């Protein structure tokens, strides 16, 4: 019986991996189409219907391009950098609860890669490691623009991690647990955290943008100042891994935002649905809801990217340290006071 659970778990983990990769793949297509639509253009629509085969064409192109390693680069670290970026990006999707439980035989199996009671800390830890790929890659290139990009990435990620952590603390105070599943279950129905933590949500989202190195915080790779930043010297699939990990990160960040603030797989009227349909179907609807929310946030990430210009570096730092961190601390204090007053 235990073996069965292991099989189901490994299937779920493989599924989560595959789904995050698939979604990231199609995010590249969606991003280009969306960018085009926001700019009154069509975007890639030639490869397959609606251009849906474009990511495959891109991958083929990247794989067949010349693998170039600069002569003065640190060879092993040069290869290690993009691999690490991809690894950390994929690892954090493991703890996200995508749905409630599936009834298989007489067992209820949660739709989640691994259940740990420190889910938030786990994903936070992995996210904080994400910067290493960029730093190592940027340093190993032995190029001043790459190094500048790497250094920017490092200081930006550390600065925004603080505010992000503080924003999460307020959520943790409300749920009293570090378990992502418990946090989701607390937001049963339409009782989403965003209604109690609007400020925390905005802080978290802003920091998520910065952690994913997305516009308006894409200073590590700002092409017009740093010629591509940390990936200046990269070509072929190593460049592909760097760019692709950004999309995986975006998917994970969107999923975490939905879990922490938008109720994950909860939706108003879910009890009514659960009463009338079989358990597995209700779970499937929940998973669909979760993915709808995630897709909305991926869309939002892209929407912001094609709307807001990049920050200047001092603006980035003063926003992080002088606005977001004090606001997040104030948010914690207010949350604590309210919890004490009402309980």
């Amino acid at each position, binding site marked *: 019986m235990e073996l069965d659970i292991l099989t189901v778990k490994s299937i779920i983990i493989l599924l989560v991996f595959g789904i995050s990769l698939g979604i990231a793949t199609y995010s590249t297509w969606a991003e280009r189409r969306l960018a085009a639509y926001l700019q009154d253009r069509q975007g890639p629509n030639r490869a397959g219907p609606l251009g849906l085969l474009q990511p495959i064409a891109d991958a083929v192109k990247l794989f067949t391009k010349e693998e170039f390693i600069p002569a003065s680069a*640190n060879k092993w*670290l040069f290869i290690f950098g993009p691999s690490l970026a991809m690894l950390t990006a994929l690892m954090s999707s493991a703890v996200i609860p995508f749905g409630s439980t599936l009834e298989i035989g007489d067992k209820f199996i949660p739709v989640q890669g691994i259940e*740990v*009671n*420190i889910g938030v*800390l*786990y994903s*936070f*830890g992995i996210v*904080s*490691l994400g*910067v*290493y790929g960029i*730093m*190592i890659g940027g*340093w190993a290139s032995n190029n001043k623009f790459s*190094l500048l990009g*790497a*250094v920017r990435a*490092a*200081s930006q*990620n*550390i600065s925004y*991690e603080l505010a992000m952590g503080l924003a999460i603390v307020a959520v943790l105070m409300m749920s009293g647990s*570090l378990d992502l599943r418990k946090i989701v279950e607390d937001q049963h129905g339409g009782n989403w955290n965003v209604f109690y933590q609007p400020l925390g949500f905005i802080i978290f989202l802003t920091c998520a943008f910065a952690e994913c190195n997305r516009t308006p915080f894409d200073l590590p790779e700002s092409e017009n100042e740093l010629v591509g930043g940390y990936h200046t010297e990269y070509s072929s699939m190593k460049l592909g891994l760097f760019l692709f990990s950004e999309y995986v990160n975006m998917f994970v960040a969107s999923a975490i935002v939905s879990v922490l603030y938008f109720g994950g797989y909860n939706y108003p009227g879910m009890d009514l649905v659960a009463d009338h349909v079989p358990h597995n179907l209700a779970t499937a609807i929940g998973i669909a809801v979760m993915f709808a929310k995630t897709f909305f946030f991926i869309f939002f990430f892209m929407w912001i990217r094609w709307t807001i210009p990049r920050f200047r570096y*001092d603006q980035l*730092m*003063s926003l992080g340290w002088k606005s977001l961190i004090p606001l997040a601390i104030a948010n914690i204090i207010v949350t604590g006071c309210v919890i004490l007053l009402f309980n």
Partner: protein
Amino acid sequence: MAEKLFYFLTFLALASGLMVVVSRNPVHSVLYLILTFFSLSGHYILLNAQFLAAVNIIVYAGAIMVLFLFVIMFLNMRTHNEPMAPIWAQLAAVVSAGLVLMVLVAATKASSPALEAVADTDSFDSQIGLVQTLGQTLFSQYLIPFELTSILFLVAIVGAVYLGRREPGERNSF
């Protein structure tokens, strides 16, 4: 299974720890140090201290070592023109490292009854490393040391801000 993992992690920790000292390139040293932290976190997980493992990675591997790497990349240290330390400094380093080792061994020896109690599988509380237990202990039994540590941190923060503040007449703004 757990035993094999323990030996693997111990080997990894020792080997990467050695490489920190041995490798000529400071950036490599830092990366090996990060690997050491990871194997230590693995040990924490083996002890069911998940919180400690995660915090170790977030704080040490995720933040402090990033800053280390940051500084080393900026300093652009070259390995070949690094002068040898004078002989008295080398001696002093050996002596102080030996002293630290002695203190560690002594501390381990002194606390061995407690360690044995932990190692006793019958009375071992599997929940001991979880965040709830840790919080309860910190805020009841060890409240005073905890608060003292907070004050220490506050002092450190004030010191950092003082060091990092702009001098009058200094031009660059950040």
